[in-house]
Structure formats: C-alpha cells, structure tokens
C-alpha cells in the first residue's frame, strides 16, 4: 500500500518540478531584462496587480497630493526614508546627475520621493531633506496604511528592522526607480545599478 502511494507520487512531483522550473525561468528572464537596463514599455498592463494611474498621499507642505495632479509630466518615483544613510542619497545623487543631463527636458519631469517612514518623516522633514538635492521633487508621506497601499501598487517592498543600533530601527527596502508616463501609467522600471544615462534615455523616450 505504502509502496503504491510512493509510485503514484513520483510523477506528481515531476510535474511540480517542471512547473517550478518554468516559473523560475520566467522570473530569471524578467530579472535579466531589468539588469540589462531595458525600458519595459507598458509593463503595468501586463502585470496582474498593475498600478492604477492614481494614488493619494500628503505632500511635503502638508497638503493632499493626488498623482492625477501631475498629468502631462513624466514622473520618476521611488521609495525611501530620510534617515537612510546610503541607498537613498545615492539614488538622489544619481537623479541630480540625470537632471543635469536632461537640460531643458527637465522642466517636464517631476521626482516623487515616497517615505517608508511616516513616524520620522513629517512633511517638513521631507521638504528640508529634498531641498538639499536641488531637484524638482515632491516628498510624500501619509499614514502607514496609505503608504503601504502605494508600496503594494508598485510592487515595492520594505521591512522595518529593530536593531541594537543607536539609530533605533532602520528600514531594509527595495531600490527600484519607477518611470511613469504623462498619463500616470507605469512605463518602466530601473534598478539600483542602472546608470544615469539609461534613466535619461527612458525619460526622453516619453518626452519626444
């Protein structure tokens, strides 16, 4: 009886293995695509939980913000927090270089910085922080629930880690930069290692 069960199980596990391989290959392929820094046009419409072309948060002046306010602008959106010592300033520094390279086209681009850390990142903290980078940027915050909704909408990820550091908690997080077109639709995604020229090219493709 036991032997019989084992015999039946084997083909099943084979099918499962094949299915896993297919899924794994699919993931690998999509990752490679990103690593190459290619622009993924209309990626959103192909994904199951594709972002709707709007979300609402609070801006760095404490006013309600809706993505629909930026219709007609190309948006570079990313998530971070102002106590982030390394990854976030590195991305903002890269965006400063993107801005320089864009020349006159930069007037058509807005950068959105969504904080993972509403506890520390009040609107004024965000405003002071972003002013240091001389970008056309808007810092966004909200309740944890509102922020999580936007995080999920774009497939970003974060985890708050309590540590023995004097800094208290810190946040581990995904580092993707999202490109939204003039209608607020997700038009591309850049990874952390993509250089400024790849981003400039992606933005220009939407403008021209």
């Amino acid at each position: 009886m036991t032997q019989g069960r084992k015999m039946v199980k084997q083909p099943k596990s084979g099918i499962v293995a094949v299915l896993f391989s297919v899924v794994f290959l699919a993931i690998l392929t999509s990752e490679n695509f990103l690593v190459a820094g290619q622009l993924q046009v209309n990626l959103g419409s192909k994904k199951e939980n594709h972002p709707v072309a709007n979300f609402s948060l609070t801006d760095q002046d404490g006013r309600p913000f809706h993505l629909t306010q930026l219709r007609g602008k190309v948006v570079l959106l990313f998530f971070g927090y102002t106590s982030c010592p390394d990854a976030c300033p590195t991305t903002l520094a890269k965006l400063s270089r993107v801005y320089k390279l864009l020349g006159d086209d930069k007037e058509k681009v807005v950068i959105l910085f969504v904080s993972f850390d509403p506890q520390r990142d009040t609107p004024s903290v965000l405003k002071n922080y972003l002013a240091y980078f001389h970008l056309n940027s808007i810092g966004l915050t909200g309740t944890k629930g509102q922020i999580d909704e936007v995080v999920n909408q774009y497939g970003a990820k974060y985890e708050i880690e309590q540590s023995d550091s004097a800094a208290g908690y810190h946040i581990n997080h995904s580092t993707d930069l999202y490109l939204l077109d003039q209608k607020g639709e997700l038009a591309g995604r850049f990874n952390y290692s993509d250089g400024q020229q790849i981003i400039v090219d992606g933005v220009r493709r939407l403008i021209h």
Partner: protein
Amino acid sequence: MNGLCILLVWSAMGLNLMVQGSNSVLGQIADCFLPAVRSAMIKPAGDSCALLDDKDQIVIRDEWIWAAPASQKMTAAYMLIENHGPTEIGLISASSDASRVVELHKMELEDGFMRMHKIDSIKIPAGGIAELKPGGYHLMVIDLNKELKEDDKVTMTLQFTQDIKRTIMLTAKRRGEAEK
C-alpha cells in the same frame, strides 16, 4: 629593551647617512621608521620601543561625509583605509564631534533589496585596503548635533585593534555631487 632601542637608533642613523637625499626604497624604509626612532630618542628611556608608528601603518585617504540639513539626524561617512603593516588590523569603533554616536555599518544589495547591518569591525588585511563606499561599508553618524553644509569639516576619531587610534578631518559633500 633599552639596549635594543639604542642598537636600533644606531643602525637607523647609519642608514639615514647612507641614503640621505635619495628617494630609494631604502630611503623610504628609513623615512618610515626614523620618526619613531627619533621620538624614542627624545623620550626618556621607557618600556616602549615602537618601531612602526601607527601613522605609518594605517593610511586613510579620500575621506568624506554626506552633507545633511538640520532636520536630518543621520548621515554616513566614507574613506579608504590602507594597512601598511605586517598584520591584519580591524577598525572597531569611531566617534565624532558632530554626533552623539558613530557606528560601523554594512549595506548588502540582494535582488534589488537593500539591507543594512550594524557590524563590530571592518577588517583591513596586512598590506591591504578597506573600502568604505556607498553600497558597502560606511560609518553611520547618528544624532547629528549640527547641520552639515557643503565643505563643513567634521573631526572623527577611529579606534583600531592593536591600540591604534587615528583622528581625521572629513569634508562634507553636497548630495548630488559627492559621487561620480
């Protein structure tokens, strides 16, 4: 111990005469340990006879810190640390005049997900180098007590193993231009 010191002073002086004015390897070697020997000569005879001054053993360069607005309580400092000595040295702690605490941290990027860890030491192998740079190791400067504007100076004291201590001056770089 004192006898050994005298012997070394004597041999170093001889070496100094031999290589005076030259830029030879011997000259560099002499330059390396003569200051230590000279200071040993000035000092009253004691127990210590350090041949290699820690200033020669550890060389820190390209040090900088991200500028930070007053509202920001944390920032990060970077540098290259060279170990010219014969044994591995660890950077084990740091302190600064600009903040309450300085910690050693390491960043790890895996599948686009950035994690940060507090660590106990950064090892610098004998004859090797430790790179503190964005995406890798940094000194986490916590509870800044002032705004750091571009070109502001921050003093930092680094404590290494083997009782080596170094104080350095870092220049604040404005975000956006700090990196190439």
